[in-house]
């Protein structure tokens, strides 16, 4: 790559808007107004036609319409309606231009079409909901300190469990992609922007609306179904379940649009010379993830619409006895749900493989294998969903097939491990904080993967299914995999994004606190599951008290270690404010060749790429990738 950035064109800052205008405040005001208008409209519909619910004092039409109205009002208040209205009137399409790099925080509370601003919005927005979900996890562990109900009511406990699951699975889907793919993909492929910057902004604000919708469930009685929302239990739910429907509908729409946007950007907007074989591995992982999002998320949208119709329009998709089937939900949900967990995992692969060459000072080992691995995982993930249903009594004859397909998916996953090991081999490994998190990922994901084999083997799964073993398994892959690689990414790109240095020593303390408490939390849960404790229970046999108390205390330490990160971040950005170097990691990737913070225009000239994406290592064989990058000498 030969991209050398000069400072971007200076421009006069845009006139700063006051509170009136299209911004978050207007969005909230119109959102509340939209809620009430739609809510009252729903009341009219309810009174006019649908008699069945009048006895219960619950009107799902009203609440679902209210959510729809609220979200539309919120988006209109933010200014998302302006462009579509102009288009209806026949104004030609406009590509949003990059915004002027204006000072102040106001730009973060408006629609922005600058991918760097959106990614920071994503980071903060998702962090808020991540901590809400994490708080729920702490509350779950508080309740499980004792084998009987002692702190929360039974309803509230299940609501906490469901909110934790939905928040983490729904919001954290974009937890990695949102902040980092939006930030890095345009930089890494040299395009300055995403293909559809307005849609990029929309995905973020939809997600924020979704989070608020989910939290609003506590005003309507909560939902007792967990994040999987199995029917017909969820159909029985009080109005709180409508929040679940609204939440996941918004999340799934946001997911498919985000995936569409990223995939279109990667496919069509690569700068000259950025051939497929030069694509940074993180971009490959984003591409694999985007494909899953584009295809799997709409399935969820359709499924949720069916569920909403069951609650409002008297259809019976999921009601056995009146033409429906509980299995229908289980099938449709997991056709989406299994790709979904790989949507969470694959970006982690990409981050780790992207960072290892920098800190091992070697090229990525087995680039093609790594790409094949991620693409393979993405492809296979559509063919394994019934392993969630081994003992459900559904198509039992297919169990050997799903056992095989599930175990086959460990092959491409294994490629990633081989590439990790190969990249480190004979390297000059620099133990920085991001590197520690990458190695933590490798350790945790290994156990996540191996425990997955127990779940894929039908005879073993009979014991482990629906128990804490499964719960420990997917926390090892998601918390241990996604979240650890997310932290690697935060410590690595954080200085570039915020412009400030993070404290290395505190970062190491945080890593060790998090790594040890994580394993001390979820390791024993394998045993808890083996010993027969089902998931999502508010009570457990008193013999398991010791293990559960241990796990709870570890979980509190884990929670504290995450709060400690918050302190590190606040300290770096609010208090210390030590400007970060342009390239503290001596990376050869393009984003590090740009000044910190990256100017609004990214590059003045469209970069031209040539050579290997990971030009580390000496000597560079001439056969490998042509000329040396011009920037490599600068270090």
């Amino acid at each position: 790559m030969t991209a050398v950035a000069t400072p971007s064109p200076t421009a006069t800052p845009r006139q700063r808007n006051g509170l009136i205008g299209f911004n978050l405040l207007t969005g909230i005001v119109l959102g509340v107004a939209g809620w009430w208008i739609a809510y009252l409209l729903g009341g009219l519909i309810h009174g006019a036609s649908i008699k069945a619910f009048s006895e219960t004092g619950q009107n799902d039409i009203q609440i679902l319409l209210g959510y729809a109205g609220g979200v539309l009002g919120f988006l209109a208040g933010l200014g998302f309606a302006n462009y579509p209205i102009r288009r209806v009137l026949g104004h030609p399409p406009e590509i949003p231009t990059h915004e002027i790099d204006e000072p102040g925080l106001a730009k973060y509370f408006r629609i922005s079409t600058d991918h760097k601003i959106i990614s920071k919005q994503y980071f903060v927005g998702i962090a808020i909901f991540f901590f809400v979900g994490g708080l729920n996890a702490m509350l779950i562990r508080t309740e499980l300190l004792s084998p009987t109900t002692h702190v929360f009511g039974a309803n509230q406990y299940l609501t906490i469990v469901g909110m934790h699951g939905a928040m983490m699975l729904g919001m954290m889907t974009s937890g990695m992609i949102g902040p980092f793919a939006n930030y890095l993909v345009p930089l890494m492929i040299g395009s300055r922007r995403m293909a559809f910057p307005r849609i990029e902004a929309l995905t973020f604000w939809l997600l924020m609306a979704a989070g608020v919708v989910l939290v609003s469930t506590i005003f309507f009685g909560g939902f007792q179904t967990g994040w999987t929302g199995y029917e017909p239990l969820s159909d029985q739910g009080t109005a709180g379940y409508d929040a679940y429907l609204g939440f996941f509908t918004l999340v799934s729409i946001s997911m498919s649009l985000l995936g569409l946007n990223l995939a279109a950007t990667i496919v069509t907007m690569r700068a000259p010379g950025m051939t497929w074989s030069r694509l940074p591995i993180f971009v490959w992982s984003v591409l694999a993830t985007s494909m899953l999002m584009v295809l799997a998320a709409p399935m969820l949208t359709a499924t949720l619409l069916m569920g909403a119709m069951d609650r409002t329009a008297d259809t019976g998709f999921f009601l056995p006895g009146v033409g429906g089937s509980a299995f229908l939900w289980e099938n449709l949900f997991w056709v989406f749900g299994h790709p979904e967990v790989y949507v969470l995992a694959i970006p982690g692969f990409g981050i780790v493989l992207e960072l290892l060459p920098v800190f091992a000072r070697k090229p990525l080992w087995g680039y093609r294998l790594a790409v094949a691995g991620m693409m393979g995982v993405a492809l296979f993930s559509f063919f394994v969903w019934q392993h969630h249903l081994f003992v459900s009594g559904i198509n039992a004859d297919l169990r050997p097939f799903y056992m095989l397909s599930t175990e086959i998916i460990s092959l491409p996953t294994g490629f990633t491990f081989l590439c990790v090991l190969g990249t480190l081999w004979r390297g000059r490994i620099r133990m920085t904080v991001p590197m520690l998190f990458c190695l933590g990922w490798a350790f945790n994901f290994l156990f996540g993967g191996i425990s997955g084999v127990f779940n894929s083997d039908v005879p073993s799964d009979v014991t482990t299914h629906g128990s804490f073993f499964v719960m420990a398994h997917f926390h090892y892959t998601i918390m241990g995999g996604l979240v650890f690689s997310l932290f690697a990414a935060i410590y690595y790109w954080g200085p570039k994004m915020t412009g400030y240095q993070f404290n290395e020593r505190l970062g190491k303390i945080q890593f060790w606190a998090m790594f040890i408490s994580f394993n001390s939390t979820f390791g024993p849960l394998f045993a808890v599951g083996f010993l027969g404790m089902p998931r999502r229970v508010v009570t457990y046999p008193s013999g398991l008290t010791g293990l559960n108390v241990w796990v709870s205390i570890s979980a509190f330490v884990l929670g504290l270690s995450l709060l400690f990160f918050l302190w590190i971040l606040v300290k770096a950005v609010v208090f210390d404010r030590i400007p970060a170097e342009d390239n503290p990691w001596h990376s050869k990737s393009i984003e590090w060749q740009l000044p910190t913070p990256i100017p609004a225009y990214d590059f003045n000239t469209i970069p031209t790429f040539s050579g290997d994406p990971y030009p580390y290592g000496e000597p560079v064989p001439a056969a490998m990738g042509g000329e040396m990058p011009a920037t490599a000498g600068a270090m």
Partner: protein
Amino acid sequence: MNTADHTPHFRRVALLWLIATAILTPIVIFVFGPGLPPGNGSAQAAGQVTDNTVLLALSVPVAMAVLVTLGYEIWAFRERDLTGPVLDGPAITGNSSVQMWWLIITTSLVLFLAGFGSVRLLEDGSGGGQGPSPLVNPAGYKHALQVQVLAQQWNFTYRYPGYGGVETPMLELPANTLVEFHVTSLDVVHSFWAYQLGVKADANPGVDNIAYVNTTHPTLINIHCAELCGVWHGYMFQTGKVVSKADFASWIQGAQKTYAPAAKNLTPYSKTYFPSPLGRGA
């Protein structure tokens, strides 16, 4: 730049791996193996212990291969002086024979696991719910003791069609008997988990989910619901019993007498039930 490093790293890693595997695998098999769940309350439960042991034993060399390599790399290739100039390692971008061997080994492992799991599953059904037409019917299944498990929000009850369709609030089974569970639900999805028997079968409304189990010796059974089914899911547990055949005979006779008042109200025995209200009652 130390490109002329002739240390036999690969051999060292292989040796370390061999040692770690040789030590840990027997420990896993002989120390942990017998303690693995769900015990030997039934032939199927014992079979699951075997599966768990095999999987655990196989995962030791795999985990060790990754962990030993990773640990060795961190130890041997670590840059100890981070303040000095940033030096690069050799530009190795791949090794086709390593990649090929990795692919061969992992593929064979996976195929073995899938084959092993399928064979184990096809032997006796492994105690899992198999739906209305089981793929695996153990020997002598036509004379199995039939027990219907009725799940509802939030309790299990049991019907014994061979004993006049009597319904009881608790589960008792004779020892040394092949039992055919018919698990169904009257409302939402539950899951019948008889821990010591190694049985788990989802209870779906309108679906007859069959699971086989060969009981062995008298034991207590912890029964849980393993699928979130509403507010009292966490309280949906019971204790059942496997008793001697004679005890079972006298117990079921007693039950027929005790629950006679309810028995005359019961709907006729059926594989599935659709009690009203069916949908959203108006």
